[in-house]
């Protein structure tokens, strides 16, 4: 800092003001960082508060819930969880949900992988129209398909099976999987395919041995999204099932007993539906940001 020594009072004032401004500029990032943290905390509290309340309810007995409002469980109880894990009506709801979600993930990925490869590598008659048509399925409101699905699956004898729900969720999950995978595949240079074919790899061998490992993070992200949209959808899932393959979501709506809604059990069941999601996010946390942009950033 080779500043000239000030000679006039005005120059002194000017220099002091400049130094002051510089100091303030250096100091600001710290306060800004705290403001960032503060705002982020406010948002996280907003996210967590309703979930905390659900958790709070799930550990209270029904008499405590309906008695006075308490900010945390006064007499901590696991009775609702015990009930869910001991009553087959309840826990079969989870088994059913997980069963059709896994089936859907498997089916969707199996047919979406080659299709996405075709879209990312080749031009063919009607490719753009086909891609747009696929995306329109993503936009179809489940309510529109409610009645026809019910009739279709009833006719072919799939009503109230896991396969029915898994197939119904393919409606939006296959287009989604193709969309995401196409993005990830397009970022793999085409020279890799060409080199492999020159080296004498057949297409299936190249696809399984070389290509799939290269887009493994994309596949992980795709599976995450398939899980997400199949796990959260309920309108189709509950319409296409009655007792044999009923998802947990529709079991929950039947907690209205003679004495009104069983709030404790409802809360505990709700908490248990959140957990699989958190586990799944944990596994893909490093790729999720890219995945949310559908591999297109």
């Amino acid at each position, binding site marked *: 800092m080779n500043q000239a020594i000030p000679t006039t009072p005005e120059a002194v004032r000017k220099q002091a003001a400049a130094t002051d401004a510089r100091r303030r500029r250096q100091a600001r990032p710290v306060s800004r960082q705290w403001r960032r943290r503060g705002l982020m905390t406010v948002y996280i509290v907003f996210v967590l508060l309703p979930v905390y309340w659900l958790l709070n309810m799930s550990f209270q007995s029904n008499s405590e819930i309906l008695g006075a409002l308490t900010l945390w469980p006064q007499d901590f109880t696991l009775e609702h969880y015990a009930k869910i894990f001991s009553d087959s009506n309840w826990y079969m709801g989870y088994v059913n949900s997980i069963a059709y979600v896994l089936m859907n993930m498997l089916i969707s990925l199996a047919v979406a992988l080659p299709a996405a490869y075709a879209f990312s590598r080749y031009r063919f008659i009607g490719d753009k129209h086909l891609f747009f048509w696929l995306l329109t399925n993503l*936009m179809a409101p489940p309510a529109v398909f409610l009645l026809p699905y019910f009739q279709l699956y009833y006719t072919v004898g799939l009503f109230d099976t896991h396969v029915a729900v898994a197939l119904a969720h393919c409606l939006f999950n296959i287009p989604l999987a193709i969309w995401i995978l196409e993005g990830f595949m397009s970022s793999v240079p085409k020279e890799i395919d060409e080199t492999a074919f020159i080296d004498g790899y057949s297409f299936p061998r190249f696809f399984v041995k070389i290509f799939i490992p290269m887009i493994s993070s994309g596949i992980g992200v795709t599976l995450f999204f398939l899980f997400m949209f199949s796990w959260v959808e309920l309108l189709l899932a509950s319409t296409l099932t009655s007792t044999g393959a009923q998802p947990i979501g529709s079991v929950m709506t039947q907690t209205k007993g003679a004495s009104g809604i069983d709030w404790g059990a409802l809360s505990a069941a709700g908490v248990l539906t959140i957990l699989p999601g958190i586990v799944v996010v944990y596994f893909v946390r490093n790729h999720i940001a890219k995945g949310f942009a559908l591999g297109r950033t």
Partner: protein
Amino acid sequence: MNNKIYNNRAWWLILPMLLLVAFSAIIPLMTVVNYSVQDVFDANTRFFTGTEWFQATLNDPGLQAALVRQFAFSLTVLAIEVPLGIGIALLMPKKGWQASAILILVTMPLLIPWNVVGSIWQIFTRGDIGLMGWGLRELGYGYNITRSAVDAWGTIILMDVWHWTPLIALLCYSGLRSIPDAYYQAARIDRASRWAVFRYIQLPKLTNVLVIGILLRFMHSFMIYAEPFVLTGGGPGNSTTFLSQSLTTMAIGQQDLGPSAAFSLIYFLIILLVCWVFYTAIMNLQKDKQQDKGA
């Protein structure tokens, strides 16, 4: 994009997907089309009605009101969630364990089944057992979502913001992470203000992901069913009955096959039209980008 090989054998790769999607999309859709132009009495008696159901649906004041509410709802949540999501993405830390922890916490609402989201907010906002309902009443506000349409609307919008802002935030977060550090360094050398950095570095990088985000958000908000159904049941009165719920009541509750099929098609076409505009926007953006690169 432009160096794809022209090869019609690619259809073989598409085929399995096509068969499956045809089974779960084309056949049901044809059923809907079939119903929409006929009056079905029983398995053997049916009459061709032409466009009668479509006219009836378009002139039904109840459905018109639901459509208006639906647009009002979708635009409101977009107007809140997009800026809020961008803001949160800017606040999210980029490194360290906090980044992972906040990422997981922010994503959490997206992975809760939609009817459970409704239940969570039902429990949270009830006047007797809910923290928010109780809290607002303690503060002297006569909060009641089963009586007041304003309260019901406010709560549903708040719930949707809670539920879906993370989607926009995560999309923007991923967009922001793809900006090279050199851009920020250049901005610092130029003494660019915080606003200038946002406007000329960050926002241009976000346009692509924001188009995807707005598209997804519009689609999902336009199809919203489970959350308001659980929380308010469409009430008080019809004030929070959106299109999906009107349709389900009509198709399942009243078994009006013809009108509900016509309604389904109109509903689908509206979403399709709006999304087509967005899709062309995405394609044009990508084209512009490629031209920029080429130039």
